[in-house]
């Protein structure tokens, strides 16, 4: 029996730093692919390049997940040990495999728009299932409001747009990132208000407690500052947005387990 314990660099939670990093990688790169298919399908070079990033994000993220398992060598049990569609973890594992294969295909070969849109649906499932995974738990910070999928999808659009913008400065992307960042901020505020009665310790940990550095770091450095800088220094704004997207995933994952 081989067990691996990849230590959480910042805590002793069941789902911690590595899970948050996976959420960030898959969410950001998946979001970039989604945006390129939605808005830039005439630029096949960009679609294929973002498919490669998303493939790498999904592959590295899935690697982190496997290493974080208590029994990493049994990861095939996820796929080959029966049919468990009620388990979001099981569905998510299949989404990862299918989206990974689809993204690699889009990158490697010229594909039709229909194929690219089909893979985009898989990428959206990878981005979105992570929120549903958290909602299936018994943790009130994750499931007392139905807004977590909105938060993760809006954040994927913001961070994915920022990632594209680093390589592909385009005015349309700037408007897109601003719009989705505004949605993201509103959804986050609503989520905190909605979950506060059921998940008071988690919300307080974010606002004034041990997770305040991540929460306010996101609000100030990863969200407010990029909005301010968007028209002044787009590259810096994009980088800060990416930092913010990680902080968001991190404090959401941690606040559920306070």
């Amino acid at each position, binding site marked *: *029996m081989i*067990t*691996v*314990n990849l230590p959480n660099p910042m805590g002793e939670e*069941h*789902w911690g730093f590595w899970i948050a990093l996976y959420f960030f990688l898959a969410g950001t790169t998946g979001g970039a692919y*989604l945006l390129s298919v*939605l*808005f830039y399908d005439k630029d096949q070079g960009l679609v294929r390049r973002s498919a490669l990033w998303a493939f790498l994000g999904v592959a590295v993220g899935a690697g982190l997940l496997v290493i974080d*398992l*208590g*029994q990493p060598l*049994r*990861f095939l*049990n*996820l796929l080959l*040990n*029966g049919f*468990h569609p*009620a*388990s*979001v*973890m*099981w569905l998510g*594992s299949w989404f990862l495999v299918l989206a990974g294969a689809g993204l690699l295909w889009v990158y490697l070969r010229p594909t039709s728009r229909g194929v690219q849109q089909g893979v985009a649906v898989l990428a*959206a499932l990878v981005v*979105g*299932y992570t*929120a*549903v*995974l*958290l*909602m*299936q*738990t*018994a*943790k009130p910070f994750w*499931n007392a409001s*139905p*807004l*977590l*999928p*909105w938060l993760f*999808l*809006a954040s994927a*659009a913001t961070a994915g747009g920022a990632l594209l913008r680093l390589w592909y400065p385009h005015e*349309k992307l700037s*408007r*897109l990132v601003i*719009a*989705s960042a505004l*949605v993201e901020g509103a959804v986050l505020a609503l989520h905190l208000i909605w979950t506060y009665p059921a998940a008071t310790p988690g919300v307080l940990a974010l606002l004034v407690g041990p997770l305040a550095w991540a929460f306010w770091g996101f609000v100030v450095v990863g969200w407010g500052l990029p909005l301010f800088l968007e028209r002044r220094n787009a590259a810096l704004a994009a980088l800060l947005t990416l930092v913010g997207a990680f902080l968001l995933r991190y404090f959401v994952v941690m606040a*559920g*387990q306070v």
Partner: protein
Amino acid sequence: MPNPKDYAILFDASRCIGCKACQVACKQWNDLEAEKTENRGSYTNPPRLTAHTWISMRYYEGLRPDGDPYFDFIRGSCMHCTHAPCVVSCPTGAMAHREGGVVTVDEKTCIGCRSCVQACPYGAVHFDEARGVVHKCTMCYDRISNGDQPACVKACPTDALTFGTYQEIRALAEERVRVLKERGYARANVYGLAELGGTHVLYVLTEHPSQYDLPKAVREAEKRAATGWLSAGIAAAALGAGLKFIVERREALKGGGQ
């Protein structure tokens, strides 16, 4: 609703003296290692269940509004739910119902993903870092499937714990509540009849379940996930269409102005 012939345990809080014989018997029979603990100002010790503590008695003391002191105990452990969130969320089928409605984990299949840990509203499933799998109360399946009682029930000196078929245990619980109400415990109630499809561990309580930190009206994991998928679907459609509308309408307006 559990099958009338299923295995079941009754914990009668009105008969419990808080001696922890059940807690110790559980450790001994299941060969669970001792926990390093400290005095936290409560008899509840260890303060919560772990991979090596499958029963932990919780103690509640204070003054009632009328000035009477109270000292109440509850047996914290797995409730063996009929619609068990741990079973639903398990991606490999390792966590499953066995004959008689008992929920156990198959250590040879478990991958240590901790979905079940996050899903349990009773905090009864825990991850064993050394072995990379989760552990919890098995209702002493090795004993009951051979015609014996669970170790905790056998050890109880005051008949606060009773083992039998679900039909017998439920009838006994309802009879005890009737007797307690006659004796003036107006708030006496049975806990576990409605929760998660009916639990195979029933509690007779003299106070409202919230007095013992027991969750009421727990949503089933299937329903939580369904809400999540619905919300994610709406979010993806609304965000995709909304961003497309915002970005391209601006483009169309600009195009018209030229």
